[in-house]
């Protein structure tokens, strides 16, 4: 590769890795051929569609398109959190998940795009879409973990919550250890990823910019800003989430549902 474009033939050559994987699983009789094929095809098709959509939007940058894409990503992330919970969630809890994610992501993005990156015009899809994608994706992982820990905690520590209520604790006070634990487990991956940054792995965005010919120092500045944005977005969303989500487990008479 001499920099710049990657030809279709060059791209095709990368599928050799999938072929090797397929041969290995067949020889070892691990029944995963179907999943490997389907997921590589899905990855290819999904990314190609996204590529076309993005180039269409980049060529027609109207605020409307950017906002629609943003909302689509956000709804998909919320839906994913519901699905990843692995059990049916109450309506009440679903509403609170959607509310905290919507509010957390939009506030973070507004600050990050308008103040930190000073993107102009504010809806410039070349910046807004990839950055929103990263922030929303990480937020989704955080909230998923938070939901999981909260549900687990409310089940495992039900007697503790009850006994606190019996002594006159408010629902917030009674579920505080569970709330804190949920916050902790939701934030841990983001905090850990900051520690390994640059040493264990070079994050995708930066790598992409460098390959695309950007100055590494500038690419790293962007990456630092994005990491901070991700941390901010995840923590804001998770704080909002735990602060309102525990209420879904109590009724208006401060009784456990």
């Amino acid at each position, binding site marked *: 590769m001499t920099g710049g474009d990657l030809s279709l033939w060059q791209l095709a050559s990368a599928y050799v890795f999938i072929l090797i994987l397929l041969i290995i699983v067949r020889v070892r009789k691990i029944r995963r051929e179907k999943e490997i094929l389907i997921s590589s095809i899905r990855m290819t098709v999904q990314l190609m569609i996204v590529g076309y959509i993005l180039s269409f939007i980049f060529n027609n940058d109207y605020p409307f398109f950017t906002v629609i894409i943003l909302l689509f990503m956000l709804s998909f992330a919320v839906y994913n959190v519901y699905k990843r919970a692995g059990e049916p969630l109450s309506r009440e809890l679903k509403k609170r998940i959607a509310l905290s994610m919507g509010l957390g992501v939009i506030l973070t993005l507004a600050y990050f795009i308008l103040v930190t990156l000073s993107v102009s015009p504010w809806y410039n899809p070349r910046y807004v879409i990839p950055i929103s994608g990263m922030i929303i994706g990480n937020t989704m992982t955080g909230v998923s973990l938070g939901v999981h820990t909260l549900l687990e905690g409310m089940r495992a520590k039900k007697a503790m919550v009850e006994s*606190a209520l*019996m*002594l006159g*604790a408010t629902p917030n006070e009674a579920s505080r250890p569970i709330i804190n634990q949920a916050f902790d487990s939701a934030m841990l991956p983001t905090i850990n990823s900051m520690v390994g940054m640059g040493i264990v792995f070079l994050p995708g965005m930066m790598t992409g910019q460098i390959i695309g010919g950007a100055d590494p120092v500038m690419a790293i500045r962007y990456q630092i800003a994005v990491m901070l944005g991700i941390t901010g977005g995840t923590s804001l969303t998770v704080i909002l989430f735990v602060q309102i989500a525990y209420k879904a487990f109590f009724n208006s008479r401060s009784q456990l549902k």
Partner: protein
Amino acid sequence: MNQPLFQIRQLKYRHILFIDELAIPQRKITCIVGESGSGKTTLLRMLNHMISPDSGDIEISGRSVYDWDPIELRRNVVMLSQTPVMFPGTVRDNLIIGLRFAGRAPVTDARLEKMLKRVRLNKGLDAESASLSGGEKQRVSLARILLLDPPVLLLDEPTSALDEETTRFIMERLTGYARQEKKTVVMVTHSSAVVRDYAEYVIEIKSGHVVKEGERHDRR
């Protein structure tokens, strides 16, 4: 009976409780007796407003349970659950946490130690709560609510994990305290000895219905 503390009317809860009318006196030691599964604990939880009746009403000091702020009610009508619950940390943490839950300031170690003596628990305040036996945990939970010193105590089998001798010691101290401080105690118990020796008012429940209630004049 002068003005009762709890007045229950036409109460129904699932297929567990059906009480047409029941009055529980104030400043007395009331024992609720009956077979397992008869609805005794459900009734206690109802008085502490951990659950609401499907229909009917409970008046507490002449005020409908629905007119009470549930948190304020539970700070006045404190309940001790049958299975003692320990929070992570030491015995001290477990005693203090009740005060925190009730929105009150912590107290000195001397006061905490006095409480432990009152429930005859020979453990240091720094002992890990996880290392306690069932009976010890039960006594820590009892000390925790005694520390709150509420006007009404609901106790669900407070001495079930204790031997006869310790039960007698704790009941003597508890009833003495209740009489002196004019507390209302409502206690679910399986022990006929506790009823015989300490109950001033007895309510018997069978399959969710009150089958007997009244004063015990033959108390020693």
